[in-house]
């Protein structure tokens, strides 16, 4: 590991000022669960780190019936997983968090750090996108809100500016007659994801008709992939097995995966079909009861 200068920010304001000062040579340390490995491998060698992990003001989970859920960016994965509030209202997030790395990583790693590292196999992004998450980005100059769906641009790359900090993740209140399901596929249980998907289904109350749908997949493109056609096709339809199967096939056709040691591109597409199908079915069943 190369030497670097280290700053620990004591407030968000200080963090913003530090980061605007060192934006060209510094990196923000939010939890460091992937950053420190990169530093050790000398794949990146910033001259300074700005540690924001200790910022209590960005560590919270709050809910309001009207505005929905707000999660501070420095909330740990474990806190989200164990939050009774989230288990009750956004259970998919709690379930999804169980798939994030290991307990040790979830104890120290933060949701904001995870999103900003923008690993396309990351667990949280698909579910958060399916829940309609927005992000609050702040800098010394001000703040802006962006949809998580628009956040990622490429492998490990986001629209965040060098002087910005991700401060908060916001989600609308749970929609009625809606369920969100997260499913992943890996060789070993805690293994690297070959494919994962999060599906949100809203049904017309008391019917089998899909009112709204969102299908997000990871590990099949440089960024979490939101299907256009597949979700659109479901809308207004009765969700029979045939329709669901058709949508899953469509989702697979929208992916552009690559081959690697874990799976070939072709196989990933096959798994997308199965996983999306299963996730839609499960979300649909739950949405009918929701």
């Amino acid at each position, binding site marked *: *590991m*190369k*030497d*670097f*200068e*280290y700053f*620990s920010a004591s407030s968000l304001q200080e963090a913003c000022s530090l980061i605007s000062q060192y934006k060209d040579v510094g990196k923000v*340390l939010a939890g*460091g*669960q*992937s950053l*420190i*490995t990169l*530093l*050790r*491998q000398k794949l990146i060698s910033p*001259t*300074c*780190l700005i*540690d924001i*992990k*200790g910022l209590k003001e960005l560590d919270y989970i709050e809910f309001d019936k009207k505005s929905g859920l707000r999660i501070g960016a420095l909330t740990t994965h*474990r806190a989200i997983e164990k939050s009774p509030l989230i288990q009750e209202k956004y259970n998919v997030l709690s379930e999804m968090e*169980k798939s994030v*790395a*290991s*307990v*040790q*990583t979830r*104890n*120290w790693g933060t949701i904001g750090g995870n999103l900003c590292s923008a690993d396309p196999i990351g667990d949280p992004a698909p579910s958060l996108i399916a829940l309609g998450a927005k992000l609050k980005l702040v800098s010394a100059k001000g703040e802006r809100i962006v949809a998580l769906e628009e956040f990622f641009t490429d492998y490990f790359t986001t629209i965040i500016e060098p002087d910005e900090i991700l401060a908060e993740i916001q989600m609308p209140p749970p929609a009625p007659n809606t369920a969100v399901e997260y499913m992943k596929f890996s060789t070993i*249980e*805690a293994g690297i994801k070959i494919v994962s998907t999060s599906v949100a289904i809203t049904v017309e109350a008391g019917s089998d008709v899909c009112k709204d749908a969102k299908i997000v997949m990871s590990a099949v493109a440089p960024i979490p992939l939101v299907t256009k056609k597949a979700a659109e096709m479901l809308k207004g339809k009765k969700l029979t097995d045939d329709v669901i199967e058709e949508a899953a096939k469509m989702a697979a056709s929208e992916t552009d995966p690559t081959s690697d040691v874990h799976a070939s591109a072709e196989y990933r597409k096959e798994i997308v079909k199965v996983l999306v199908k299963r996730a839609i079915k499960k979300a649909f069943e739950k949405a009918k009861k929701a």
Partner: protein
Amino acid sequence: MNGSKKTINVKVNGESYELSIKPKMTLLQLLRNELGLTGTKQACMDNSCGACTVIVNKMAVKACSVLAMQVNGKEVTSVEGLASRDGKLTPLQEAFLEHSAFQCGFCTPGKLMSSTAMLEEMSDPTEEDVRRDMEGNLCRCTGYVQYLAAIMAVVRQRKEGSK
């Protein structure tokens, strides 16, 4: 100067230390190289094996992926801090011994720290909870069965004790 030393205050296994360290030092290096607490092991270098697990403020974390600077003002427990100084093992250590829950012993400190933190956090975990929570601790020797049994024995023991 870039990389110049900084001072931290940290409590390790009950002892308070004021240390001057380079910012790039990881918590693992702090324990092993600065404090000579070599019970905490390094086995993967990329946050995937759990051999370096220690407890920071009651939470199990991987010491290879935390900077020493980040534990400034915090309490760290490593495997050396489990048994009492006069040689009394914790119930978990006793159970590991009784169930032959380890072989080569290289991942054992990490497993002990993870399971110690888990049993602090969860009062009555099921076997599935235990298995899931121990996912982050790789073991090549034991095949996991005997050490999961050891943890479950402590869970049962505790339940019976509280009755």
